[in-house]
């Protein structure tokens, strides 16, 4: 099983969610993080203008069976891209085991 972590623009979240649903990925968790990267945002506060690369982003954590990996990644890339700097990253890593708390089952079938 793979854990796919994607850091995306908050404003692209609902598109990504829709796209994920359409490829059959209905289970995941997300939260908001602050990201530092190439993108900069300009702000002015009380006459002091400043630019910050600390931008709020959404962090998606999706654990999928190996055969879903590709579809998930391409769904995120398709729906999450704007072409402008700051679209975010996807990280893929390996998960050793998965348990469903409700039933105590483990393994790939818990992800369906």
């Amino acid at each position, binding site marked *: 099983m793979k854990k796919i972590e994607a850091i995306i623009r*908050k*404003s692209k*979240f*609902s598109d990504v969610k829709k796209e994920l649903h359409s490829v059959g990925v209905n289970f995941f968790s997300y*939260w*908001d993080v602050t990201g530092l990267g190439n993108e900069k945002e*300009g*702000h002015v*506060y009380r006459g002091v203008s400043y630019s910050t690369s600390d931008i709020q982003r959404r962090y998606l954590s999706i654990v999928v069976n190996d055969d879903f990996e590709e579809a998930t990644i391409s769904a995120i890339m398709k729906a999450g891209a704007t072409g402008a700097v700051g679209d975010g990253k996807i990280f893929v890593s390996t998960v050793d085991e998965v348990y469903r708390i409700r039933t105590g089952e483990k393994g790939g079938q818990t992800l369906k």
Partner: protein
Amino acid sequence: MICTALVFFMHLGFALLEIGLTRQKNTINILFKNIFIICTGLLLYCLVGFNLMYPGFADGASGFFGFAGFGIEAPMGTDGTLDLSYNEGYTYWTDFLFQGMFAATAATIVSGAVAERMKIGPFMIFTIIYVGVIYPIAGSWKWGGGFLQTLETPFYDFAGSTLVHSVGGWAALVAVILLGARIGKFKDGKPQAIPGHNIPLATAGVLILWLGWFGFNGGSVLSADPGVTSLTLVTTCLAAASGGVVAALFSSVCYKNLDLTMFLNGILGGLVAITAGADQMRPFDAILIGSIAGIIIVFGVALVDKLKLDDPVGAIAVHLVCGIWGTLAVGLFGALAGFDQLISQLIGVASYAVMCISSTFIIILVLKKTVGIRVSEKEEMEGLDAHEHGMDAYSDFRLSED
């Protein structure tokens, strides 16, 4: 004087209510609009509005268009005089301030309805025209001694169910239609919920508005006679209370949950409805008017949704529908009840409808065709605060909105 302060305070109530019922990402924008309205409202009313609204009509005009010439020259008088005893007890200046606050209220109503998607520049232009020109002209028809005042059975609107609230409500309706719904409000033709981000502030806003209504209605007893004033406050409070309770009960029957926002809208509906006849009703009438307003609110909000109109704060149901109801109620209940009165009320409502709808339509359409009235999709998704103001409302908090 105190009443003026209370009416001023209503603007805080409106501001809190509006931000409470909308999303966090547009908070600064809404606050900015509201503050802007108060400030420019006052200034404009000082420069042109007051004289446009109370033109005198002494010169045998029709009481309809005769005010046109006054607007420009009279202000000089306003500024040039320091006559402190305009009339007894109730001074010229107090009156000016009081009316200036009212004028701003009409624009605030629109602000709530168009929240979260209208460009701030065009909204500012709209505010300036509406508060500076349309509202005073409309106001003069009745309070300035215009044609509605000189009807055989004069149109009666104690403190502005129609003159303030409907005038704002019609404009809100037209603006909402021309503007379209927020992204995500209607999915496959079905209305979606976009919950407000700070219900405690919204609740505080409603209680502050209620407090302000003590001034709104209480202060409209121009004679300041304590007897009438206190009766007015009693009817005001009873209508608010019954509006709220009925809306809450009724919506909990319909939707099986105790919806605080309906309770809040119900209170406002009751307040708006009683405003037209606050000094003419007995307590029992007030409870009835309020209760009906409570039911209207629940239907009204649902109706607005069904018509695919997107009114984040419920301004149309509260101010327009209950404003009309309250105005008509003067012909149905209380000391003035009677068929003639009802007809006069209908004439009044219709006149304002025509006036407000057409003027708003023209202003907003012109703005739409020229500068555009709606923010870009990107801006709407990411929030107006980030784009128009470059600021966050709650910069230390971690957020989770969609």
